């Protein structure tokens, strides 16, 4: 299990992340969501032991991570900015990582190269961005870590490779009881991968729940009337957000919404359709709480 206990990281006077607390269970994939510059990378680097937390602790398997080789030999961090020496090939990098990761499997490495169709002897610097990322994913999985930290890992992958990668992660986590944290600013990439998500907003973790909880907690209803409607018609109903377009209203409820839906029926709509919220809609809703209206930028 990976435990974040009140983690704060500052860069001089600038607070990058503040008082972050959450856990990632074994055989679990945790999605870290946040807009650009929210602090996802900082949090992951702190988790990887690259940065030292100014406050709080990060534990893996009950041990402190920072400068602890006992843990780090079972942890693999795939950063957003990849590192390959000038003349490195997938083979030489495999040799390099095998020196530091005792569980590194060349068999897995060869298998995964086959899956992604990469040449082990070619210079990685000659690869495309997506191929370089595939190489790092291959190396990371070949190291057989118990803890995988992935920063914007799907960035640059084509849709086919994304799906393959997702399946690989899911399979790997399930088989090895590993814990995986993956960060992204693209919710759709994580929507069918993670079992838990955390939203970093304003340096803090503003949301931390399972994907199931999200789907249970939010509901979206489309209501069609035979007359023109306005927001005042819904004054007695408690909703999270509403979007009215002539005779049609889209309403999002948070929490138990059955009683509110009953009130909706009392308004006499000609049709009510209920939908499940996508993670992206949840993410945007959370962001709206911060009163950040991008439309106003260009006024």
């Amino acid at each position, binding site marked *: 299990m990976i435990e974040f206990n009140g983690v704060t990281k500052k860069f001089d006077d600038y607070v990058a992340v503040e008082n972050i607390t959450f856990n990632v269970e074994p055989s679990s994939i945790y999605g870290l969501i946040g807009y650009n510059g929210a602090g996802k990378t900082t949090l992951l680097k702190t988790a990887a032991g690259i940065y030292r937390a100014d406050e709080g602790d990060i534990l893996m398997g009950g041990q402190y991570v920072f400068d602890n080789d006992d843990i780090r030999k079972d942890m693999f961090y795939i950063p957003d900015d990849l*590192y390959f020496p000038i003349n490195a090939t997938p083979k030489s990098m495999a040799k390099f990582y095998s*020196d*530091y990761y005792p569980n590194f499997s060349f068999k897995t490495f060869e298998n995964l190269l086959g899956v992604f169709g990469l040449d082990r002897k070619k210079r990685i610097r000659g690869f495309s961005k997506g191929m370089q990322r595939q190489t790092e994913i291959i190396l990371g999985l070949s190291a057989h870590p118990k803890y995988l930290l992935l920063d914007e890992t799907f960035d640059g992958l084509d849709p086919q490779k994304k799906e393959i990668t997702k399946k690989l992660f899911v399979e790997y986590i399930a088989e090895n009881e590993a814990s995986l944290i993956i960060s992204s600013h693209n919710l759709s990439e994580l929507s069918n991968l993670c079992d838990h998500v955390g939203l970093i907003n304003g340096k803090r973790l503003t949301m931390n729940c399972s994907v199931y909880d999200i789907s249970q907690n939010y509901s979206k209803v489309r209501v069609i009337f035979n007359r023109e409607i306005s927001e005042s018609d819904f004054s007695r109903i408690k909703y999270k957000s509403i979007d009215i377009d002539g005779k049609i209203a889209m309403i999002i409820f948070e929490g138990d919404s059955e009683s509110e839906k009953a009130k909706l029926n009392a308004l006499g709509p000609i049709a009510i359709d209920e939908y499940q919220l996508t993670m992206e809609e949840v993410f945007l809703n959370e962001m709206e709480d911060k009163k950040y209206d991008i439309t106003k930028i260009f006024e």
Partner: protein
Amino acid sequence: MTSLRYSNDKADRKDFARSLLKACPYSVIALIVLLTYFTIPVIKFVNSDTLKQTIAENGPIISYFGNAMMVDSFMIVAGMVCCGILTAIILFRFMFSKNSVNVYFSMGITRSRLFFNRIFAAMLTIFIAVTVPLTITLFVNISVFGYSKHLINLFFYFFLVLFTSGLSGLTIGAFASTVSGSIIEAVLTSASTSLFPFLFVNAVGELKYSMLNGFYGMEGYTKIGMLFNLLCPFTFVCDLNVERMSNDQSITPIDRLSELLCGKEVPKDMAVDFDLLAPLIFWLIVSMALIAIGFTLMNRRKAENSNSFGKFGVATAINGIAVYSFAFLAAAEPIFNALYGSNTVFFHNTWLTTAVLFVILIIAFLLGELIMIRKLKPTLRRLPVFAFMFAITIFCIVFVSSEYFGTYNRLPDTSEIKLVSMDIHDRHDIFNYFSGRFPAATLEAGAGYSSKDAEDIKLITEIFNSAKESKYKKSESNDGSEVLGDDLYFYNDYTFNIVLKNGKIIQREFVIYDLDTAEKISRQIYDSKYYKNFLKAALCEQPDTSSIVGETDSGDDLSYDYNDPQRYSDLFHNGQFTERAWHYIGNSSMYTGFVRSNEGAGYSTEPIADTKALCKALYEDLIKLPYDKFYNNTSRPLAALTFNDNTYCAYYLDEEYASMYGDLNRKQDADINYGDPYSDSNKTLYNELNKKYNTGAVGSCIYIYPEMTNTIKFLKDNGYETVPFNAKVKEVYYADSKINLTKLAVNELDKLTENGNKNSDRYRYYIPRGESYVFEFNDSFTGSYFTYCFWTSDNAYDMDSSYKITLREMFNKLIDGSEVKFNKITDQRKAEQIVSKCVPFFSGVTGDNGRYVYIVYDNGVICEEYLPSQNLSVIK
């Protein structure tokens, strides 16, 4: 989390192996260079005829390690330091990229192991690079010369020098890498760190005369100098073939090193000289400390600062201090030079010094920090560093300016002093430094006369304190550039020996550039009972020579023989004055300087018989002669007495040329080695020449003035009369400034040198010498001091059939070729009037603003004399 505990052994081994591979390139270069410098020359040597020749000339050879360390020591040691620094930066460069830091700092290996694996790997490669060539050299030596302990000593010494140099560079580079965000910053920080010892040693070198006022020239200074060498094995090693070797050219560098390594002579005492090893041990300790600091900082390193410049406080502070220090050295020296005329007067004016240093500090800080950080706000956050540097600067200034600095120069109460003595090297003697001549003025020195008299003790302690207070303050009028050379000043040098009742001996030496203070002290001494007692002891009595054994405050035992005749002997060459061979020199000699080989010079070839009576007469005159009559006499002396019977004599070969400003060989750009002037063969030759040319051998002399009635009576009673000098003055030359022909010739030579001319061109400003003309310029005296090079003005020298010049031609060449206009007086009456006001000694070098006058006699003789400032009215 910074422990060395480790669980991933395989990763550790592999990381070490990888580091070893990465560390190899620079060590391989070092290995090749060292093989080239050490091993190959030795192999060539032992297989060459040179070995047989060397053994035939110098006897059996114990070992031979080549001359590489002696000849190119700086380059080799600096190369090893650079090798270490570059290796470290190559190994730690992963820390300068955020991308690679992401990998290395998240892998299954601790930062501690990353650090130590690289340090040990680099140490191993440096060790191999050093050991392989030295070991091959060792075995070559053993196979040729056999085993000796001396050989092993040499091996280990060279090993320590080279390995320590490489290790120092490595640890400096590693330390710099741990506190730097980029390669450029690491290189800068390494350079700053490794240059600090040089900087410190240079700064101390600049300040040492001020800081060690009183210790200058004394053993304490040497001891402190050795301490400074601790900081820098590089300069220490370089000293081996620069300063330490310079005294005896016949000793080869390897012989000298052998002596230093083995204490005494090889192979009697095989103890390794600690002085030689101390700086190496010191730097081994420093290296260990740097490793410890680097290790600590590596664990605390903020990975987020990688790929940055100026974000690491330690590196910024080091580089900032380096910039400040270099700016201090670069700017302070010319500023203080401009303010005081000498760079040895840093602490002359505390407030001004502080103000100047503060301005330098601000400029250096702002420039240094802004360049590194490039933003004003973060720069301002560095103010604590600025405050630190400022505090250090102020502390140094206050400390040096305070009473606490110079405690070693405080004398105890006079009641605790048993005995005092002092020597004065007066500015009147400055010329002696160049010529080796000791004129009469030496007598005022006191010549280390020791006294237990309470009044003398009081006087000497007062003078001691005056000399101490004077420090290096230079009076405005003290400008010796025209007669001594650029940036040279007149000075008096005072040496004190204060023997305390508790057995301690305080030895101090003060150099005074303040002529007012020097004059005051000289008058104080001259009029004192101490000086008169000295004259009595020196000229009339056998002084008390009992010894005192004490300990100097530098901790060395010293057997102090006060009033030892040997002390006078050191100064005057041959013991007591009464035991000298005194010769009488007539007035005409003082004009002509025995220049006519067939005319004689009025010199008494037989020494004066009754030296005791002569010295008594001299004593009775000198104690009555007023100070100004002795030092500043502007009238011509009646005659002179010389009291040397041996003097410098040298052979000159074809192709060798001489002048006042040195000797050269036209075909070789090398100094002339005169050999031993006191060798039997030289003495014999000199005596023959002495008789042939009737020149006598003179070095020190006392002028006889009309006031010295007892001496004049003695001379007359003993039949000494002046020989008439018949030559008439033909022409007189003088410039409108105090410049002389020597200086003009030096200027011409400087121009030739600046234009790349070598001896083959420069010799045309020299007077040829040869077997026929063996007189060394010291042979002349009094009025002919500067005229030695004109003494056979009628003759054209024809040494190599290619270069002929008469002395008159040389004279004209200098006078006419000079940018300085010389006044020429041909009216005989006027010329004789000027000559009558000239004096034959060197008031000019004492700071007097008179004129050098060149007198051409109708017999071809050309003399240089001096017209004192008091007599200048004769040419107006």
